């Protein structure tokens, strides 16, 4: 008996879909997307209407984890977006492909954009400020445990670390030195590919994968140290095809991917006097299991960490920034409000995903600092 996987309309995804939880709109749920996808004309939506509705997905992947049939909303949406590219995808492509040029330009222009304009312009000033933000004073000194001798490694800086927050990359490389890692010759990686994939820019994603694999091979396959949760997820998703079917190489890639926090979690920590009274950890949707970022933050913050809320999505959503900026904002504001519900002014929100940092810093009240955990380490 044939048993293809299909959505059975059980509704388990409604419990985790951040778009549904914040908006209460059933038509945005993965359940609705799969239902509408399965309707034949003339019962269903027109192709155009279906694509524009089904395309509203933040790509968090929580539905797939919760689905008894392992149905993935983001995969359905990526496939749909890849079939018909539109202006928003072209813009997103430009944004990801030329960050060195476009990001500073957008930051300069955003200074003149009034907050009263509709999204994504309305919050662009704060968003670009968040992208190019500066760290506050650090409040924890971390001395890594010497773990390696003569092991070559490269930092995968990610787009944000490469083009906006070089200070994160500099700190991360200093920690790598402290761990005893030998830096492989400097080379530039492309985007990890995750954001291209969710936007349906699958050719771009394949090219980014190939470029990154070739770059890694050219410097003799060193360890890849990663400090952004979404980059880690993107790099983990490379398939055997990206390695021309070479299973050994593929295995080597998988075992070379190393979250920086996993190497720092047993380091020596000295807390400085300016540690805030309250710290909030935002767990990114793409946080790995185990979540070493959380372990590290728990160690640094001790009893000052507020209870961690594990089911909040920041609402960044990649191309949704352009495709449905109002929805992204609505989810972002709700996330920021929930995170800071029991927090006093001066509390700091820390996370391990570059996109979450930017999104939350954009939508959190100015009473709170939002940053990467690298921001507060000395």
């Amino acid at each position: 008996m044939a048993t293809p996987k299909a959505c059975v309309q059980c509704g388990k995804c409604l419990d985790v879909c951040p778009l549904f939880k914040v908006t209460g709109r059933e038509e945005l749920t993965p359940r609705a997307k799969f239902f509408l996808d399965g309707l034949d004309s003339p019962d269903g939506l027109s192709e155009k209407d279906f694509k524009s509705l089904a395309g509203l997905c933040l790509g968090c992947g929580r539905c797939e984890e919760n689905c008894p049939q392992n149905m993935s909303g983001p995969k359905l949406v990526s496939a749909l977006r890849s079939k018909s590219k539109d202006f928003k995808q072209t813009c997103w492509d430009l944004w990801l492909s030329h960050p060195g040029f476009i990001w500073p330009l957008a930051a300069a222009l955003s200074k003149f954009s009034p907050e009263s304009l509709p999204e994504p312009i309305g919050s662009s000033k704060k968003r670009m400020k968040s992208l190019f933000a500066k760290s506050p004073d650090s409040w924890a000194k971390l001395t890594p445990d010497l773990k390696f001798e003569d092991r070559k490694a490269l930092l995968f800086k990610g787009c944000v670390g490469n083009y906006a927050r070089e200070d994160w990359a500099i700190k991360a490389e200093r920690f790598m030195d402290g761990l005893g890692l030998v830096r492989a010759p400097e080379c530039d990686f492309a985007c990890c590919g995750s954001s291209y994939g969710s936007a349906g820019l699958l050719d771009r994603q394949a090219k980014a994968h190939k470029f990154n694999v070739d770059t890694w091979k050219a410097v003799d396959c060193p360890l890849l140290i990663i400090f952004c949760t979404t980059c880690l997820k993107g790099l983990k998703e490379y398939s055997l095809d990206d390695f021309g079917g070479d299973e050994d190489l593929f295995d080597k890639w998988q075992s070379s991917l190393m979250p920086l926090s996993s190497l720092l979690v047993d380091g020596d920590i000295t807390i400085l006097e300016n540690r805030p009274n309250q710290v909030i950890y935002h767990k990114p949707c793409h946080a790995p299991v185990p979540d070493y970022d959380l372990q590290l933050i728990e160690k640094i913050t001790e009893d000052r960490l507020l209870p961690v809320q594990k089911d909040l999505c920041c609402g960044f959503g990649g191309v949704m920034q352009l495709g449905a900026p109002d929805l992204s904002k609505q989810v972002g504001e709700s996330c920021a409000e929930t995170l800071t519900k029991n927090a006093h002014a001066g509390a700091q929100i820390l996370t391990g995903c570059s996109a979450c940092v930017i999104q939350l810093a954009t939508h959190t009240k100015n009473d709170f600092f939002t940053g990467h955990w690298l921001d507060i380490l000395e």
Partner: protein
Amino acid sequence: MKTYPDKLSRAQHKFLKKLFPEGDSGFTEGELLSCGVDASRKHAKPLALVKPSTVQQVSELLAWAQKDRMPIYPRARATNKVGGCVPVKKGIVVSMLGMNSILDIDAQDFVAVVQPGVITADLQKAVEAKGLFYPPDPASQKISTIGGNIATCAGGMRAVKYGVTRDYVLGLEVVLPGGEIINTGGRTHKNVVGLDLTRLMVGSAGTLGLITKATLKLLPLPETSASMLIGFKDLSGCLKGAGAVFGCGILPAAMELMDHNTLKALEMHSAVPWSSDTGGLLLLKIDGSQESVTTDLLQIEKALSSVITTFIEKGSGDEQERLWELRRVISPAAFNLGPDKQGEDVAVPRGKVAQAIEAYHEIGRKHGVIVLCFGHLGDGNIHVSVMYDKSASGQSESALKAKKEIFEKTLALGGTLSGEHGIGLTKADYVGMQLGQTEMNLMSGVKTVFDPHNIMNPGKGV
């Protein structure tokens, strides 16, 4: 044959937009199609979707609907399996998800007052934080709402010891067709004044009125609980095991059965803890004080030593949830055995369970479809899922024949067509097999008193 509006007039559209401004009403194809389907996978498209946040809005809506003879289809998370939410006569889908506040939890009165859109598990968490307990636990408790649970009189796994939803509903606020708001029952745990309208409402599947508030009975939270998953070689082993447990004088909070096909579906779904020679499982839970649970566990283990088991795993505290998650995913995991499902939730007198399950398997073999039996052994409510492939020639007909024979056998054993899912669309044609004409006439008369123009969830059986 009653006719209902085929489309909204301009005035009707305007009325709804005014009563439910901004995002609280929906008229786009995407919104309408998405709110016309439920876990039965049956679907229809309504004329409008509205999302009330106050009882006054519901009252105005039902006054208007009565006047315009407009069908009203209450809806929340739409997790029911019988098509209870499907707007087969178009009309207006009323999503109660926005009315989702827990209004009161009172440890003195042992009651909670809630709006219908509260997720059952959220209520349970909230009352447990105060040392209280709301026992009804349908498998969908994490994703279904109190309103839906009341409308369907949801059962659950703890029913064997604690009963079902109707045993915990003390009072209801209901809006009737025409807009009048009534209050049935109250905060007292006993109440014999007048006919029991509360019980009439519970399980009426939105055909009499629209529930906007519920007062629920709470119990003290048992100090602790423990669970045991016990493997047997086959079904008869399971039933001997169950007999041994009940025989030692302990009433488990839950006693679930899974047959060999259920095990197969779960094995295909995720890693399972049982050994390969296991052909049937019992999953049971006991609760009470730390002392009594420890003693009960020992006694159950002793009782089980008289039967042959293949595997035993125990769990307590949060760790036992792992075992219960296996039970909760059966329904979706069943699709590993076939792309289409015809799910029945018959119940038979407790002493007839073995006979019933053997007969259901025989019916499956006869018609060439896969029959899974699992569910609430403790109270005789057996979920019988017929898995088939409607794209294969003759399978749909075989599944339907199997359904009818399953019902015939169930009734012959003194059982009922539905223990907890209800009738809705999928079983509407079979109600006459169980109910006599006089009983049906009485029910129809009651319906007419409440809903003279048949605007509440029309097209469904109850």
